[in-house]
């Protein structure tokens, strides 16, 4: 069946492992898709055996997860090995209206962002459904329709906890600026890479011979800064979610006398929190901070029909929407970091110049999108 068309007409027959000679067009063979697909399957298979129904079922299966990640990385390395030599010689352009003369890669990237938009739309739909559809924990507390010792189902926005103190908000606030600055640094990388040799030499007052070396260092620096800011973002996220942060002496007083910024985990705000307690939902705490006098809880306690106490809440749905939506965004940052580490490496080896600077631009499209999503996630999940 394949006898007549089994082989391509080109003289060269590049290795499916790379590196690739792009002057002959795109790679015709690659092991990367096969390897990466196997890795994804291995990862999902292992993960489903480590955790079952919220419990750690089999830590031994973690080796499967690790194996999956290693296989994916191997596939990526093959892919990159083929891409490393892409120097802009091969850059197919669209021929049909309405995208004539626009790089195919650019068209593809915009189309890809269309589906990314739908991903976050769906996550926000979930959030809106639950935020508006389930009673807010604060409202339940003030309505007095709870008794101490029994959990009530209600929606506790993470923002209630996070925005309650500048110290909780600090990681998210810093992250916002980190991402916005990283969007700027990626544009600087593009600008540096795209400038023609002559203009570059004029601008930095160097001779033409040293342009390439100077430029590689500079491009790599900007890409590296972007990578650093992305790493900072995820580090702060881990601090905010799991680790917490010790507050130095003078700040302890400001932080209600606590010597550390508690993570969401230590505050008990987790996806398994079916009996979440918080000082805001404690009537004795409210002796100092008055319960609003127009609330049902106040009247009931005055009339002696409500004994007061600590309200326990099942906040699993609210916590799930928070962690999964911000987590999905975090995974996008991680994906960007993986791409950036390759690009920084390539930039360092002088891989980017005016002929292929568009690669940075197209990555930048994705990176700006991730930034934009954060600009929406931050107010909805951290402030409001």
């Amino acid at each position, binding site marked *: 069946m394949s006898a007549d068309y089994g082989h*391509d007409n080109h003289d060269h027959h590049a290795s499916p492992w790379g590196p690739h000679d792009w002057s002959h067009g795109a*790679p015709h063979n690659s092991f990367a898709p096969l390897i990466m697909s196997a890795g994804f*399957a291995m990862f999902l298979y292992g993960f*489903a055996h480590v955790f079952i129904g919220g419990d750690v079922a089999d830590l031994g299966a973690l080796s499967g997860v690790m194996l999956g990640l290693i296989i994916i990385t191997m596939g990526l390395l093959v892919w990159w090995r083929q891409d490393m030599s892409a120097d802009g010689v091969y850059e197919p352009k669209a021929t049909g209206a309405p995208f004539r*003369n626009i790089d195919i890669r650019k068209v593809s990237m915009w189309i890809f962002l*269309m589906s990314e938009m739908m*991903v976050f739309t769906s*996550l926000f*739909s979930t959030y809106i459904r639950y935020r508006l559809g389930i009673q807010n924990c604060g409202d339940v507390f003030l309505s007095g329709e709870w008794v101490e010792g029994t959990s009530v189902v209600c929606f506790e926005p993470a923002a209630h906890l996070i925005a309650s103190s500048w110290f909780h908000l600090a990681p998210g606030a810093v992250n916002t600026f980190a991402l916005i600055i990283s969007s700027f640094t990626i544009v600087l990388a593009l600008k540096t890479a795209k400038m023609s040799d002559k203009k570059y030499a004029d601008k930095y007052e160097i001779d033409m011979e040293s342009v390439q070396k100077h430029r590689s260092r500079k491009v790599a620096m900007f890409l590296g800064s972007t990578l650093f800011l992305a790493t900072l973002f995820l580090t702060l996220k881990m601090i905010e979610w799991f680790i917490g942060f010790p507050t130095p002496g003078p700040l302890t007083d400001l932080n209600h006398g606590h010597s550390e910024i508690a993570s969401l985990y230590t505050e008990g705000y987790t996806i398994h929190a079916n009996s979440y307690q918080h000082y805001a939902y404690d009537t004795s705490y409210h002796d100092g901070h008055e319960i609003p006098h127009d609330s049902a809880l106040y009247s009931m306690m005055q009339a002696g029909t409500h004994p007061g106490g600590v309200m326990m809440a099942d906040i699993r749905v609210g916590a799930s929407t928070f962690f999964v939506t911000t987590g999905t965004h975090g995974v996008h940052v991680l994906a960007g970091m993986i791409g950036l580490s390759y690009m920084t490496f390539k930039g360092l080896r002088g891989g980017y110049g005016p002929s292929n600077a568009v690669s940075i*631009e197209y990555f930048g499209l994705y990176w700006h999108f991730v930034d934009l999503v954060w600009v929406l996630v931050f107010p909805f999940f951290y402030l409001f």
Partner: protein
Amino acid sequence: MKQNTLLRTLVLLTVLGLALSMAPQADSLPNGIIGQSEKGCTCHGAIPDSGVTPSIEGLPATFNASTTYTLTISFTGGPSGQSGDPHNLGGFNLAVSSGILEAVDDTVKIDADQATHNGIDDDLDGNGIQDAIEAGGAAIVSGNDYTSWLVNWTSPSSGSSTFTLAVNSVNGDGQASADDAWNLMAITVAGPSTGAAAEELQSADPFVVLVTLIIVSAFLLATVILYTFYRVSPDGFNWESFAPWIIEWLTSTDHKKVGTLYFLAGFFFLGVGGIMALLIRIQLAVPGNDFLTQDQYNAFFTMHGTTMIFLAAMPLINGLANWLIPLQIGAHDLALPRINAMSFWLQPFAAILIFTGVFSGQAADVGWTGYAPYIVSETAHTGTTLWVAGQIMLVASSTLTGINFLATICGMRAPGMGWMQMPLFTWSIFIANLMLFLSIPAWGVGLIQVYLDRTIGTAFYHVASGGDPLLWSHLFWYFGHPEVYVVIVPAFGVISEVLATSARRSVFGYRSMVYAMAGIGVVAFIVYGHHMFTSGMSPTLRFVTMLTTMLVAVPTGIKIFNWLKTMHKGSLVYRTHTLWALGFLVTFTLGGISGMFFPSLAMDTHLHETYFVVAHFHYVFVGGTVFGVFSAVYYWFPKMSGRMMDEKWGLLHFLTGFISFNGIFWPMHKLGVLGMARRHHTWFITTDDYANIPAEMASWNLFITACAFLFFFSNFILVGNIIKTIVSGKKAPADPWGGWSFEWMCSSPPPTPSFDPHNPPVLRDANEHIASEPSRLAKWFEGLMMAEEDDSEVSH
């Protein structure tokens, strides 16, 4: 030529006649008793009657040695006794080949090692009061005042025992009369397996059957691959030449090779899904069948649906699209060839994950819709988690496919080919991918939520914590409804190409065809609520989606009429692909009409969850998509392989396939209206007032099962035809059918790259659709998007 037509007509009529004559026979299968002289109670009538149903309860599947079992003997049917009189209702006789029978109470006596009712007529004076009571004593129990009796049976130490039970139903007047009737049954119970001699055959576990068949199919597939390799290089049948050949296939990014891989995977899983359909049909062939347990049945229909939609239909469509889109628009390959290979390779690995549960006997049992909250519950099979994981990979694959095809069709059309000069198949793939691409992320997010619910324990769909099952339904059907159009719209494209070529004229109403498909693409997103009419969704939304769903009929109707009009002034050539296209027109229209019952809220409430729904979606899915794919295979196979397929085999495939397909699904409409519920592992004939399921269902179900086997095996004609064609088909010319679009301009099979990337073909009215003047809107939009030719700097 004329003789040929006559022959075909004759064959068609013969097969049709055979099928028609089979239907009534299946309807009146007799199951009465012939030649039985043992009547159980010797004092009553001699009419064996299938209306009297004997039964023995309390028998184990296999008995243990020397154990006493209490058996309940009873019967239903026959005359019911004189009005209100419990006397003299019936009798029985139970004989057993080994073991000992004992009476439990006075209603039964043992006579010559056989148990029978203890019939005492203690009313000799006939005044209706027992003589014993008249004499002042206690009442005597009479065994023929009952319709059920208890008997103790002590089993033998080994061997098997055969029970022969005869029962009598009498009318209660104590006299032998004409309406008294009897019937008999025999049942054999296997004994304990003590050593090799006593070993009995165990009934097969259907999962083992399925796994075995999958492995056998995979083995056959591997054999075919090896044989193909042997044909390619008969002299070098060794590892040294096999390794580079197989590596070429594993690593290729050429759209034609990836397309062929899609076809291989698609046909393989079409077979696997078909095997599951057959297992389901065996289970449903007779009432009260126990071939599959409830659990297994749930898993089987889940895997059947998932396999057919995601692992058979989608890869087959992608196979066609991969092969044809670059050829039709004059591109040398797809926009992103490596991404294309990635979208393919995600699929087999996803399939492995989806099928993981099958190999452990714990396959997902949540339906292809995976409704929450069952999908996150602990009682769902453990295979569900990996089923979800596999689906996540398929979502990734579809997203990559979407990027690729949208970018290719938007950006890589040959110079001169405007949007309105694109072949209709390309249009259909464009619209299908656009729909898929915009809808599948919603489902992907839902799947990730479910995967996390089932693994790390998030609570998106845990009702106890406030999770909302309807949210899942919304996310799923927001994708699920466009998805059903994603699998049908490419078939529209195929039929447009095939009918136009076969009618030897350009398709009627090209522009309206495009707008109709685009209209379907838009409407797809606002109708999904009709899947949730009975779910408790907002009544306002129900009303809105009712109206929008009815709207779907408009663009679809336009397409049907355009196809008819294409044939009307054309001169039709009856090739196999034409036949499948005509078959598609019939079955798809029928499926469309049955679909129009569902938008109506009241009808939907009545018909939902019945076999009417099953009939409808198989008519559009098999009669639409699969017939379309078959038509496409016959139409483009010469282009793909360079060899002509056998038309005689094709005709046979069409006749058997088309007739048996209708034999399967047409009666299901009737079953659905009669009230047979889908997703139930078995069904019973009942005359209960509220769930009246008439006896004719039994014959129809048996008929459907017979047709299902016929349909399954008819498709091996296609497989045989493909193998025969590859081995010894006639060489195909570049344009065997007289098509106009670009793919017919390159050789069969096409070279690689398909067209010279530096010198692409130019549209010279290749598909003579309409004058190629772009509209004012298109010009304005292009002006807006046009990039400058030179590589000027970004920094100004």
